[in-house]
């Protein structure tokens, strides 16, 4: 009897805990956006009122202008993942644009770049949340096509950043802002070629096999280096992980002691490769990474890594939101907007970094390191 009572009490507390968890869970996570949501709530209300009146008048561009002045757009930016500096810089750019234009910008993304099913869900959820525009960096160019179709079906403008979708149907998106990863990879390869002589041995350390971003970054560099007459002795995956990259680079150095350069498809792996190079006491090996993260910039400034291909993530997020707002305002935008790629090296590093830090500080986004 006594035992039963105890058990019941435990049960009830368990269920209550579950309920509380669900309850406080949501509100806890929402804290940051709470005030914003409250503010925008009233704005959304007036917006619908505007919309009604205008549709009565039959003039849609009018309502868009009023929307802008009221700052009532709700734009969701969906990154490939929110697990690295790169995507937090995209987040910073998007938020910065939101601040400047006075629109509400939410930035989300799955835990891992390989998680396409979750990203599709996020796009669908944004559509259901009735956002005004979606800015998307698709983590799987083929699988996300169906999500883009959903967005189109809801008549929501879609701005693609970073990566194009694998489709011939250009009506699925409003515009694309970004550098092809392949072109950017080419520039990294060309930089290495400019430092070496024909016939020199180089190796590529890449992200998870099957991840399109890394396929493209690797392929672009490989092409450029082979065209320049370099010998690519190995293309090996290290799953975007610094520790694995050390192992991979060590093995490559073991079998090719005369290696002259490592090209990695992200900076973490390049830093790992540099560790291996330094441990083997090799001095003339050129290590080039990709992304232009702060860790890599420190390394370049210290004369360790030679360069990092920077795709300007802040600019990417910024332009993504700017274009989305332009489209909502009824302006026409260029369908294809290539972004510059900077091969960061000791010469241009300082200026680039100062400018970047200023913009990130302004956006209010805190980076991991």
């Amino acid at each position: 009897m006594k035992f039963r009572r105890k058990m019941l009490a435990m049960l009830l507390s368990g269920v209550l805990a579950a309920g509380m968890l669900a309850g406080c869970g949501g509100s806890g996570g929402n804290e940051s956006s709470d005030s914003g949501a409250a503010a925008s709530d009233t704005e959304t209300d007036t917006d619908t009122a505007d919309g009604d009146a205008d549709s009565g008048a039959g003039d849609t561009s009018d309502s868009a202008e009023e929307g802008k002045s009221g700052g009532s757009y709700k734009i969701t930016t969906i990154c490939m993942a929110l697990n690295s500096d790169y995507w937090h810089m995209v987040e910073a750019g998007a938020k910065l644009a939101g601040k400047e234009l006075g629109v509400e910008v939410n930035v989300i993304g799955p835990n891992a770049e390989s998680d396409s099913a979750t990203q599709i869900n996020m796009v669908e959820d944004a559509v259901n949340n009735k956002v005004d525009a979606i800015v998307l960096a698709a983590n799987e160019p083929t699988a996300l096509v169906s999500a883009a179709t959903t967005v189109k079906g809801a008549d929501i403008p879609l701005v693609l950043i970073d990566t194009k979708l694998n489709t011939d149907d250009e009506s699925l998106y409003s515009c694309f802002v970004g550098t092809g990863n392949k072109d950017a990879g080419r520039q990294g390869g060309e930089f290495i070629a400019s430092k070496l002589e024909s016939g020199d041995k180089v190796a590529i350390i890449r992200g998870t096999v099957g991840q399109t971003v890394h396929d493209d970054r690797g392929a672009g560099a490989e092409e450029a280096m082979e065209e320049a007459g370099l010998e690519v002795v190995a293309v090996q995956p290290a799953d975007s992980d610094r520790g694995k990259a050390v192992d991979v680079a060590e093995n490559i150095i073991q079998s090719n002691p005369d290696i002259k350069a490592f090209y990695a498809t992200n900076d973490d792996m390049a830093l790992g490769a540099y560790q291996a190079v330094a441990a083997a006491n090799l001095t003339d090996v050129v290590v080039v990474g990709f992304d232009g993260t702060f860790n890599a910039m420190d390394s370049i400034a210290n004369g360790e890594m030679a360069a990092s291909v920077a795709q300007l993530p802040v600019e990417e997020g910024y332009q993504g939101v700017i274009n989305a707002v332009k489209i909502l305002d009824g302006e026409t935008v260029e369908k294809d907007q290539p972004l510059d790629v900077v091969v960061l090296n000791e010469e241009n590093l300082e200026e680039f970094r100062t400018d970047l830090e200023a913009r990130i500080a302004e956006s209010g986004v805190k980076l991991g390191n």
Partner: protein
Amino acid sequence: MDNKNNNNITGKAAELISKSGPLVALILLCIFLAFKNENFFTSTNLLNVARQAALNGFLSLGMMVCILTAGIDLSIGYTMTLSTIIMAKCAVEAGVNPVLCLLIGILTGGLLGLVNGLLLTKCKLPHPFISTLGTQNIYKGIGLVITGATPIAGMPAVVKWAGSAFLSSNQDSFLGKIPLSFVIMLIVYALFSVFLNYTTLGRHIYAVGGNINTAGLSGINVDFVRTSVYVISGVMAALGGIMLTGRTDSAYPLSGNLLENDAIAAVIIGGTSFFGGKGNVLGTFTGVLLIAVLRNGLNLLNVSSDMQTIFLGGIIIVAVFIDVVRGGGFKRVKRMKKEEKAAA
């Protein structure tokens, strides 16, 4: 006499509360989200959740039968991936009849599951955690090799149908908003409920999970039962894969990554005992919905996916805690105390 009656009533109440724990959590979560976001409790969004739940719904069912026998299938995600890849290869590159492709996909899933089962029962690997951890990597690798690490797109309409169609082609009608994948999932869940409760194999699954030695002594072909559950799991994975292929119009080599986590979570949240022998289809169904609603709701509230992961983890712990309180743990402690007394 009075006392005993009283006990029974308290016991029943406790049973009811504990059984409906996940359901209560699901309802509370829905109420909370409905107040927090005006777009949550709309028919489009709820049907959207239903569509998103289908993939995990199938995987969880497969995972559940494995866990019912005190096993586990870690390869379920990549079993799904590999069966979709082979299906897609047949459909897109070999031009096989699309209906046949669907069957090939399901058959592949079953075969991959059979491998898991045989490794356990014929090769006598000590625990399915090991065999399926191995095959998880093998299936993933085979998928990467076959596809050359690039996605296969452009499925025939028939292959996409199950995962992308709605009950009616008229989008404005009510039926036109109900995803076919969810309806198929409901039917499969209903069939499973019958299968587990009213067929010999179904009852044997519970018996093997409850106590494998007793089950063997009472004449149940334990190896057959244990192999069957992995075949079932493989088939469910393939069905989930068909849904995903329909949604994404592609088969891609990393699609199965970590999907086993959500499946295990749904099963555990649904009250299936990790030690086997206990659990039901309705519980798993609730678990699947709870996870789908949680993710959808937190997305609507713009909660980062990092935070979502923390909530999901918390819910798993609480759910298992309820399970401990409900049966296993406390009863075991009680029994041990009794035995101590008897010994003294």
